[in-house]
């Protein structure tokens, strides 16, 4: 045995665990031990978990590092561990066919990682691992060497804008709170990531929780808050667990608690579990929820920096915003501002998902084009289908079409085409996705999440949804389209909070760019063949081999036929679930 050190890193984010990361990890533990390898290495042999490294589609990802030579493997299952240990660790020869391929490198090469720099590289459950990558250095600098105004000035100069959606300048927010005199101020980390299709906040907290804690402590110190809250979704059990652990570790090392680092400054962080309400992402609703009320927004002003939690000045920052802070303090405002565009500085994390080959979490400089994101980093469309649109900003956002793919992604340019950066969900749609259905999907979401306080949102979204439902079952009329557009604009302008004001965006943007699809539905056709009620399934007797696969798949017994003879489909019994279509290997099931 000649190796001096062996290190195994297993991706254990939610994605990694779902793909069997914990089993892989256990297999490494027990087999390395059984092989007596631990005793044979000088520098140490460790197998540990790391947070998400982005490309969850290829999980379980495993790094095997022998004497500083790193090899990354993809799609690892527990039964593959034995061979990795035999051939790579003992034999010194990496298992070529399991190594990550070119697309893994393409996925990472065009990214610039600030927030995600250490996610996937360090053990998120170890504060020493974080300290080992300069963690808490920024906090020390701020607490010991910088005046609060200097810290705020650095953040202002960096040009950092809130990553939760609206893009409000962070340094400016901090300054407003700093200037408010009060016996008590609060900082709240908004980790109520409610946008369906977004998981950057979850991944940051799962992968590097200390960076968020450090960011909060820096903010608290500079504008004088002594209590912090992390408002986090209860649906993220792993993130919650790691957050609690990280908070305990930070307290033990006195990065939180009384008289932090000997400066006389007290600050501690409490965790509040969100109870599942999208609207609580809105600042005033979030505050109401922490106060134990129904999470309903109120009119602004007063803004939370003046009158927030329990009526005291409160800064609310998003997870990603806070995770940027330590890096900005360590490397300087200029360094951060060197990334991005004129008005949108730095990098942004996006959850690239949907019909794209390499779906996962990515971090890119602001201003990167959609084409680079989807086709270089994302590797293009799955199954080589045709790209149709990309939806950004979740239920508050809009769709962007192919001719706008060279658009630079930043706050301003996405707003110009009727979408938003939002929290960073980016869902790629292909030719099989119906745009009316997508609009209906988002409306269903916002309608059920509307808190009910203001009429335009409560009733407006309901009526919008009804019109969309009517259209998707083929009963829409030309007047419905007119009504839809008018009502959408009314809801947009008359609603109280961001939820209602942006809820019509998916409708307006699909109406603008995909009006032809709406019109096709009026004629009873769904061009993408996605709207169930407008489809008819048939079996082509000539192509049918009588294999019986569709008959077995059919949940209603609508398909009958003898073995090896063409089958028949009874339209009366058919519920149009599409199981036969998905099952048939001979293309004999038709869908019109």
């Amino acid at each position, binding site marked *: 045995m000649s190796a001096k050190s062996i290190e195994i890193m297993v991706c254990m984010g*939610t*994605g990694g665990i*779902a*793909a069997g990361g914990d089993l892989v990890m256990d297999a490494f533990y027990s087999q390395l031990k059984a092989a007596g390898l631990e005793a044979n290495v000088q520098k140490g042999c460790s197998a540990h978990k790391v947070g998400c490294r982005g*490309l*969850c*589609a290829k*999980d379980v990802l495993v790094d095997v590092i022998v004497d500083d030579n790193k090899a990354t493997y993809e799609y690892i299952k527990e039964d593959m561990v034995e061979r990795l240990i035999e051939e790579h660790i003992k034999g010194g020869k990496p298992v070529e066919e399991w190594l990550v391929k070119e697309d893994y490198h393409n996925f990472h090469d065009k990214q610039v990682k600030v927030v995600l720099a250490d996610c996937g590289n360090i053990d998120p459950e170890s504060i020493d691992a974080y300290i080992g990558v300069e963690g808490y250095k920024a906090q020390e600098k701020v607490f010991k060497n910088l005046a609060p105004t200097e810290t705020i000035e650095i953040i202002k100069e960096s040009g950092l804008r809130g990553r939760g959606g609206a893009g409000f300048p962070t340094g400016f927010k901090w300054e407003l709170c700093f200037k408010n005199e009060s016996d008590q101020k609060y900082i709240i980390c908004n980790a109520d*990531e*409610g*946008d*369906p*299709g*977004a*998981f950057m906040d*979850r*991944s940051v907290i799962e992968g590097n929780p200390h960076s968020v804690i450090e960011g909060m402590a820096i903010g608290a110190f500079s504008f004088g808050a002594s209590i912090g809250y992390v408002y986090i979704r*209860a*649906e993220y059990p792993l993130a919650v667990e790691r957050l609690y652990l990280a908070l305990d570790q930070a307290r033990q090392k006195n990065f939180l608690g009384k008289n932090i680092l000997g400066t006389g400054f007290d600050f501690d962080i409490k965790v*509040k*579990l969100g*109870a*599942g*309400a*999208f609207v609580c992402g809105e600042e005033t609703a979030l505050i109401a*929820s*922490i*106060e*134990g*009320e*129904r*999470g309903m927004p109120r009119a602004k002003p007063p803004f939370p920096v003046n009158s927030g939690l329990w009526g005291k000045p409160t800064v609310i920052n998003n997870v990603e915003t806070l995770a940027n802070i330590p890096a900005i303090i360590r490397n300087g405002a200029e360094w951060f501002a060197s990334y991005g565009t004129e008005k949108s500085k730095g990098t942004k994390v996006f*959850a690239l*998902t*949907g*019909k794209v080959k390499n*779906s*996962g*979490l990515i971090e890119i400089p602001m201003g990167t084009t959609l084409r680079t994101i989807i086709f270089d980093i994302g590797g293009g469309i799955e199954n080589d289908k045709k790209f149709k649109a990309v*939806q950004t900003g*979740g239920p508050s956002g809009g769709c962007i079409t192919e001719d706008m793919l060279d658009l630079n992604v930043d706050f301003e340019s996405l707003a110009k085409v009727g979408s938003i950066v939002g929290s960073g*969900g980016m*869902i790629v*749609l292909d030719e099989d*996705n119906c745009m009316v259905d*997508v609009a209906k*999907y*988002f409306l269903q*979401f916002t309608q059920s*999440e509307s*808190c009910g306080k203001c009429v335009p949102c409560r009733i407006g979204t309901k009526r919008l949804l009804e019109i969309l439902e009517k259209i998707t079952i083929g009963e829409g009329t030309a007047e419905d389209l007119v009504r839809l557009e008018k009502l959408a604009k009314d809801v947009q302008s008359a609603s109280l909070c961001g939820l209602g004001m942006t809820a019509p965006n998916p409708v307006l943007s699909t109406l603008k760019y995909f009006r032809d699809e709406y019109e096709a539905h009026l004629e009873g056709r769904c061009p993408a063949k996605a709207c169930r009620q407008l489809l008819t399934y048939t079996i082509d007797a000539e192509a049918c081999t009588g294999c019986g696969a569709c008959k077995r*798949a059919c*949940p*209603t017994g609508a398909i009958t036929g003898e073995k090896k003879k063409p089958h028949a489909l009874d339209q009366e019994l058919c*519920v149009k*679930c*599409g*199981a036969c279509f*998905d*099952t048939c290997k001979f293309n004999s099931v038709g869908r019109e």
Partner: protein
Amino acid sequence: MQSQTGFKLATSLDELREVVDKYKDTQGTTIPILQDIQEHFGYLPEEAVEWAADRLEIPRSKFYGVATFYSQFYLTPRGKNIVTVCSGTACHVKGSEKILNRLTRDLNLPEGQNTTDDMIFTLEKVNCVGACSIAPVVIINQKVNGKAAASKIALQVKKLGKEEDQA
């Protein structure tokens, strides 16, 4: 078959007292109290919530308002096995609705009902579990199934049902 509906306040009073009393005299506790009660009983039994409200001298209506506002709270008992279909955007565009429709039919759930009459299964959909790269996602008793296919999930659920029958 044992039904879970027979909640008896008297038999659970000690547990409940413990849950509630640690929140005495603190601000903003409605949500954590409800979360704790639910953690204990699997749902929010009306009697238990009313008892807690009275003990803490918080109007019952406030608890009710909060409990009905947040999707995390269940006012009725849930089944022994929980099947959660994620209906986040990524899951939706990759066919989560098909899975949901299939399971609804297989479990014979009438509209508006999400727990089977025999209390064996609860089928629910959630907004997003944040595992979009492995969409569509179905969580069966806390085990995350990524890249789920309707037929495979249906099979798993059927198997679970059979095991329950034998038990």
